[in-house]
C-alpha cells in the first residue's frame, strides 16, 4: 500500500467514525484509535497522537453551534479545566512510560464504559441552588433555556466532581481521547448538573484538555503529520456532516448498533492487549 492509498483509506474510515460519533454522541475519536490499531495495523502511539489532534478539531468546531443554544456553563467549564489540564499533563507523562499492551487494556475498558453510557437514560432534572456552598462561592450556579423560559439550577458535590475531572484528564492524556463520557459522568452524576448543560460544557472542555497533552505528545514524536492529516480532515468532515443530520434524525436504533460496534472493538482491544499482541 502506498502513502496515497493509505491516506485515502484512513480519511474515509475517519469520516465514517466522525459521522457516527457525532450522530450518536459518542465522539469520533473513541472509535478511530481501535480501528487504526486493529484494522490498519498502526502503532498504538501514532494512533493516540493522531486521534488527540482530531479530538481538538471536533470539540472546537462544534463549540460555535452549541454556544448558540445557550446551555454551556463557562464558569463550570473553566473551573473544572484546572483539574482536567493538570490530569492531562500527568496522563501524557505517564503514557510515555506505560507499555502499549497496558494502554490497550485501559482503552478497551473506557470504550466499554462509553458504549454502555451512550445507551442509558438521561435526566434533565435541575438541582436546587445552594446544594453545595462551595458552588455558590465559585458562582457556578446558572440558568439554562427550559421549556418555560430560563430555568435555574444549582451545582452539587463540587469536590467530587473536581476529583473525577482530574481522572478524566489523566485518561485523556493517557489515551489521547476526549474522555467526554467521564466528563459527563462527573458533571451529570456527581455534580447533578442538567444533562444538556453537562454535555455541551464537556464538549467545550474537551479541546482545552486535549491541548494540554498535545504539546507533550508533539515533543515526544507521537504526532506523525502523514497519519494525523487524514485522521483530522476525515473526522472533521464526518462530524460536521453528522451534526447537520442530527436535527430530526431517528438515532435510537443507530445508537444501539454503534454501541454494539464500539463494545466489540473494546473487547478486541482488551484481548489484544492482554495477550500481548500489541
Amino acid at each position, binding site marked *: 500500500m502506498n502513502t496515497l492509498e493509505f491516506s485515502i483509506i484512513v480519511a474515509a474510515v475517519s469520516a465514517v467514525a466522525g459521522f457516527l460519533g457525532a450522530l450518536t454522541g459518542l465522539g469520533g475519536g473513541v472509535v478511530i484509535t481501535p480501528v487504526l490499531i486493529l484494522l490498519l495495523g498502526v502503532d498504538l502511539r501514532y494512533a493516540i497522537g493522531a486521534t488527540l489532534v482530531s479530538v481538538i478539531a471536533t470539540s472546537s*468546531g462544534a463549540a460555535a453551534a452549541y454556544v448558540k443554544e445557550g446551555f454551556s456553563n463557562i464558569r463550570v467549564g473553566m473551573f473544572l479545566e484546572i483539574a482536567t489540564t493538570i490530569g492531562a499533563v500527568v496522563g501524557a507523562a505517564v503514557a510515555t512510560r506505560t507499555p502499549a499492551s497496558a494502554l490497550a487494556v485501559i482503552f478497551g475498558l473506557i470504550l466499554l464504559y462509553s458504549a454502555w453510557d451512550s445507551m442509558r437514560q438521561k435526566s434533565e432534572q435541575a438541582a436546587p441552588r445552594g446544594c453545595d456552598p462551595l458552588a455558590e462561592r465559585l458562582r457556578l450556579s446558572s440558568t439554562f433555556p427550559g421549556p418555560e423560559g430560563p430555568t435555574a439550577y444549582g451545582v452539587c458535590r463540587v469536590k467530587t466532581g473536581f476529583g473525577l475531572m482530574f481522572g478524566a484528564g489523566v485518561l485523556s492524556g493517557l489515551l489521547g481521547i476526549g474522555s467526554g463520557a467521564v466528563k459527563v459522568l462527573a458533571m451529570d452524576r456527581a455534580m447533578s448538573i442538567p444533562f444538556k448543560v453537562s454535555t455541551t460544557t464537556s464538549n467545550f472542555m474537551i479541546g482545552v484538555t486535549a*491541548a494540554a497533552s498535545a504539546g507533550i505528545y508533539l515533543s515526544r514524536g507521537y504526532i506523525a*503529520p502523514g497519519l494525523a492529516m487524514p485522521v483530522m480532515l476525515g473526522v472533521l468532515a464526518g462530524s460536521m456532516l453528522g451534526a447537520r443530520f442530527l436535527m430530526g434524525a431517528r438515532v435510537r436504533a443507530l445508537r444501539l448498533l454503534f454501541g454494539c460496534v464500539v463494545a466489540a472493538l473494546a473487547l478486541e482491544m482488551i484481548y489484544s492487549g492482554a495477550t500481548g499482541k500489541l
Partner: protein
Amino acid sequence: MDTAEHDRGVEVVIGTLLRWGVVISAAVVFAGAIGWLAHSGAQPRDYLHFHSEARDLRTISGVLAGAARLSWAHVIQLGLLLLIATPVARVAFTVFAFWGERDWMYVAITLLVLAILLFSLLGGQHSI
C-alpha cells in the same frame, strides 16, 4: 447580579473564534496534504512501528523553519500546531472577558489554566 446574559455574549465570541481556528488550521493541513501527497504519495509508508518523528517535526521552532522552506510535512505539522493553539487562544481570550467583568476570581482561575497549557506546550520543548 445576573452574569448569565453577559457570559452568553462572551461565549458566542469564543465559539466564533474557535470555529475560525479550526477552519484556518484545516486549510493549512489540507494545503500541506496536497503538496505532500503529490510529492511522496507513491512511496510505501506504514505506521506499523513506532520510531518517533524527526526532531524538527517535534519542536515549534523546527516546524516553523520547515514550513517556511515549504517542506510539506512541516506545513501539515504547522496546521496541527495551529489547531492545538486554538483552545489555548480561547482560554487567553476568556481571561480578558472575565477581566472586563471585573471577576477577579475567574481571572485568576483562567490564568491558572492558561499557565498549565503553556507549561505543557513549551515545557516539553527543552527536554528534547
